[in-house]
C-alpha cells in the first residue's frame, strides 16, 4: 500500500461527539492526576519516615511508614489501572493523532513503561518486605520507588510538553517526516518548567491532603505523638513546596507568554494586542500594566491579543481564564498557609495551635486538588483547538467510531464506583488499630 494512501486513510472524519470524546479524556485525567501526585510524592514521605526511624529509634516513625506504605500501595494499584485507561484512550479516542505522531513521541511512553515497571517491582518489594528484609535493605528498596516515580512522570510530561510546543519533525502531505524523537521529547523548552511545576504540585497535593485527614483528628483533640508526627511530615512537605510553586508558576507563565501567546491572552481574556497590558481581578479591579509585568517582567512589554488569530484558532477563553484564576488564587492561599506553618514550626518548635489554622488545613487538602485540576485545564484546554499545538487540530485526531457517549457514560459510572471504593479503602485502613503496624519486637514475640 503506497505511503500517501496510508496517510490519507487517517484524514478528518465525521465525529458528532468530539466534545464528549474530549470530556471523556478529561474525566480520565481528572481521575488519574491526583493519584499521580501520590505516586510521585508519597514514596519520598514514606521513606523519609522510615529513615527517621532508623536515625532516632522512635517507633512512631516506623508505624507511620508502615501504615502509609499500605495506603501507598492501594493508591498505586488504582493509579496503575487509571493510567492504563489513559493509554487505551489515546488510541481509542484519538487514532488520527496516534497514526500521525505515534512514532514522534512514542519513545517517551516506552521509557515511561520501564519506569512504571521498576516502580511496580520495588513498591511490591517495599510493602511486602516489611520485617522480611534486613532493615537497611528495606529502606534502600524504597529509593527506586522514589526515583521511578520521578522518571515516570518526567517521560509523560515530556510528551505533554511536546504537544504544547512541538518540534523534532516536519509535516509533509499530512505525515510527520524527518523525525527526531530525542530532540522532540528532551530538547524542548517546555519540558523543564512543566516537569518542575507538576512535581512541586505533587508534594503540595499529597502533603495537604494527608494534613487534612490528620488535621481533622487534631481538631477532634487527638494530639498523640503519632498524629503530630504525621502532621509534621506532611505539612512540612506541602509548606516547603507551596511558596516554591509561586516562583515556578511565574517561570511557566513567562515561557507560555513567549511560546503560546494565544494561551496567555486567554488567561486574561485580552482581546487586542496591548503595550502595557493591564490585569483584571474579578470583580472589576484593574491593575494597569500588571499583565505585561507578570508575563514579561516589564510593565511596557507588548502582550499579544486574541484577535491576532482567527476565532477558529482560539481556545474556549472562559474556561481557560476561570481555571487559571482559580489555580493562582488557591496557590497563593496555600503559600500563605504554608508560611504560617513554617514560622511556628521553626520558631516555636511545635505545630500551630490556632483552631483557624487547622480549619484552613482541612480545607487546604481538597482545595489543592482543585488547583491541580484547574492548572491542568489551564494548560490543556488552553492548548485547544489543537492537539499538537499549531500542527494538528483536535477534530482531525478524533476517532470515527460510534458510541462515544455510551463509553463516556460507562466510564463515568465505573469511575464513580472506583472513587467510592477508594474512600472506603482509606477509611478502612485508617480504622485499623495502630498496634497492627507496631514495631517488630512485639510482633516477633507474637509470631515466635
Amino acid at each position, binding site marked *: *500500500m503506497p505511503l500517501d494512501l*496510508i496517510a490519507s*486513510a487517517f*484524514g478528518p472524519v465525521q465525529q458528532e461527539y468530539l466534545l464528549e470524546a474530549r470530556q471523556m479524556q478529561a474525566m480520565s485525567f481528572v481521575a488519574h492526576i491526583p493519584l499521580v501526585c501520590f505516586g510521585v510524592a508519597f514514596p519520598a514521605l514514606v521513606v523519609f519516615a522510615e529513615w*527517621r526511624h532508623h*536515625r532516632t*529509634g522512635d517507633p512512631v516513625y516506623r508505624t507511620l511508614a508502615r501504615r502509609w506504605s499500605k495506603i501507598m*500501595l*492501594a493508591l*498505586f494499584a488504582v493509579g496503575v*489501572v487509571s493510567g*492504563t485507561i489513559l493509554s*487505551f484512550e489515546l488510541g481509542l479516542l484519538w*487514532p488520527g493523532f*496516534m*497514526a500521525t*505522531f505515534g*512514532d*514522534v513521541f*512514542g*519513545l517517551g*511512553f*516506552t521509557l515511561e*513503561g520501564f519506569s512504571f*515497571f521498576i516502580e*511496580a517491582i520495588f*513498591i*511490591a518489594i517495599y510493602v511486602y*518486605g516489611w*520485617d*522480611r*528484609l*534486613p532493615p537497611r535493605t528495606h529502606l534502600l528498596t524504597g529509593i527506586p520507588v522514589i526515583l521511578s516515580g520521578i522518571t515516570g512522570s518526567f517521560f509523560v510530561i515530556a510528551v505533554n510538553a511536546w504537544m504544547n510546543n512541538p518540534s523534532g519533525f516536519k509535516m509533509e502531505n499530512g505525515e510527520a517526516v524527518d*523525525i527526531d*524523537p530525542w530532540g522532540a521529547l528532551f530538547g524542548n523548552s517546555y519540558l*523543564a518548567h512543566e516537569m518542575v511545576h507538576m512535581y512541586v504540585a505533587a508534594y503540595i497535593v499529597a502533603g495537604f491532603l494527608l494534613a487534612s485527614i490528620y488535621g481533622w483528628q487534631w481538631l477532634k483533640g*487527638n*494530639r498523640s*505523638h*503519632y498524629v503530630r508526627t504525621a502532621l509534621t511530615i506532611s505539612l*512540612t512537605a506541602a509548606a*516547603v513546596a507551596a*511558596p*516554591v510553586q509561586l*516562583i515556578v508558576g511565574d*517561570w511557566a507563565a513567562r515561557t507560555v507568554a513567549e511560546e503560546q501567546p494565544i494561551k496567555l491572552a486567554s488567561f486574561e481574556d485580552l482581546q487586542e494586542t496591548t503595550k502595557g497590558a493591564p490585569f483584571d481581578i474579578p470583580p472589576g479591579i484593574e491593575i494597569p500594566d500588571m499583565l505585561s509585568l507578570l508575563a514579561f*517582567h516589564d510593565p511596557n512589554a507588548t502582550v499579544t491579543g486574541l484577535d491576532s488569530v482567527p476565532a477558529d484558532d482560539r481556545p474556549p477563553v472562559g474556561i481557560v481564564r476561570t481555571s487559571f484564576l482559580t489555580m493562582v488564587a488557591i496557590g497563593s492561599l496555600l503559600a500563605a498557609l504554608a508560611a504560617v506553618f*513554617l514560622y511556628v514550626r*521553626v520558631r516555636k*518548635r511545635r505545630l500551630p495551635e490556632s483552631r483557624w489554622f487547622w480549619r484552613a488545613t482541612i480545607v487546604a487538602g481538597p482545595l489543592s486538588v482543585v488547583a491541580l485540576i484547574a492548572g491542568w485545564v489551564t494548560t490543556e484546554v488552553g492548548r485547544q483547538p489543537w492537539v499538537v499545538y499549531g500542527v494538528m487540530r483536535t477534530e482531525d485526531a478524533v476517532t470515527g*467510531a460510534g*458510541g462515544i457517549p455510551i*463509553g463516556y457514560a*460507562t466510564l463515568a459510572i465505573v469511575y464513580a464506583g472506583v472513587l467510592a*471504593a477508594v474512600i472506603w*479503602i482509606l477509611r*478502612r*485502613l485508617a480504622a485499623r488499630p495502630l498496634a497492627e503496624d507496631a*514495631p*517488630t519486637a512485639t510482633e516477633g514475640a507474637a509470631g515466635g
Partner: protein
Amino acid sequence: MAEIPIVLILVGLAAYTVLGGADFGAGLWELTARGERGAALRDHTHRSMAPVWEANHVWLIFVLVMAWTCYPEAFSSIVSTLTIPLFVAGVGIILRGSSYALRAGSATPREEGRISLLFAFSSVLTPFALGLVVGGIASNRVPVGNAQGDEITSWFNGTSLLIGVLAVATAAYLAAVYLAADARRMDSEDVAEAFRKRALIAGVVAGILAAAGPFILNSDAPDIYDGLTSGAGLVALLASGAAGVTALALVAKRRYGAARIAAATAVAAIVAGWGLAQQPEILPGLTIDEAAASDTAITAVLIGFAVGLLILVPSLLYLFRLLLSGRFDPATAPWPGPASADEAAASADPNAHSSLRTALITGAVTALGAGITFVSDGPLRSVGVALMLVGAVACFLAVASLDEAESPAVPFPSPEQ
C-alpha cells in the same frame, strides 16, 4: 529494522499471556473457590498474586506502546475498529486493579467474598476481550484507516470467539499450575492438590479448544489457517501442541516447575506461529515494511528499550528471587528487629535532630534560588531552579527533623478515641 519491533511485540505478548495470564486465571479460580475450604484457596491465590500483578500487567503496556510507536497507522487502525472489545478490556482492567486495592480494606469474609466475585468477573472478562481483539486482527477484519472496519463483526466472529475462550482457558491452566507449585513450596499439600486437579481440567479444556481451532480457522480465517498448516507456521503449531501435551503430563506427575516451562513454551510457540502465519502483512494490504515507522524512530525506541532492560532485568530477577525463595510467605520468620524499645533507642544517633541553624540556612538557599529563578532567563535561570529545588529538599529534611519543644507524652492515641 522494520521487523525487530514486531518480534519484540510478540515476545511481550507471549510474556503477558504467560505471566499476566496466570494472574487472570487466578481470578477465575477464586470464582470456583467457595465455602470453608474456598477461603483457604482464595487466600492462597491472593497472597501469591498480590506482589506481582502490577509487574505482570506492565507487559500489556509494552505491547501497546511498542505498537503505536513503531507501527502507528496499524495501531490506530486496530484500536479504532476494535474499539468495543478494547474498551471492555479497559473496564475489566479497572475493576481488577480496584479489587486488588479493595482487598487491602476488607475485614469480614462476607466483604472479601464480594470483592472476590468482582475480581473473578473482571479476570474472565479482560482476557476474553483481548482474545477477541487478537481474533479480529488475525482474521483480516481490520482494514487500514480510522474506524474503517465493522464495529461488531470485526470482533464477533468465529476466530475471535475461539481465541477469546482459548485465552481464558489458557489463563486458568497457567494459573492453576503456578498456584499448585506455590502451594507446595509453602507445604500446603491439600491446596496444591486442589490446584493440580484444576490444572488438569483446564489443561484438557484448553487442549480440546486448541484442537478445534483449525476447523474454525479453516472456514473463518483461511489466510492464518494456510500459514499455520504449512512451512514454519506448521512447525510452530506442532511445537505448541507437543509442549502443551508435555506440560499436562508433567502436571499429572506433580512436576510443576517443569510444567510451567513447558506451558510457557506452548504459549510462546503459538504466538510465534501467529506472527509467522500472518507475515509479511500486518493488516490486509499493509506489509510490516510499509507499516513501520522510520528507522530513526525505531532506533530510538530500541536504544530506550536496551537501556531499560539493563535496569529492568536485575530488578525483576530480584523480585522473583525474593518471591520464589518464600521470603514473603507468612510462614517465614520475620527478620529479627531490636529486642526492645530501649535497645532501639540506644542504637539511635544522638544527632538525629537537625539544628535551627540548618533549617535557616537551607531556607535561605531556597530563597536565593527562587530569587535567581524569578529575575533571570536562560542558563542562569537553570542554575536558580537547581538551587531552589536542592534547597527545598534540604529545607524539608531540616524542618521536618527539628526536635519538638514539648515532650512526646502519648505515643499513640488511646483506644477509645
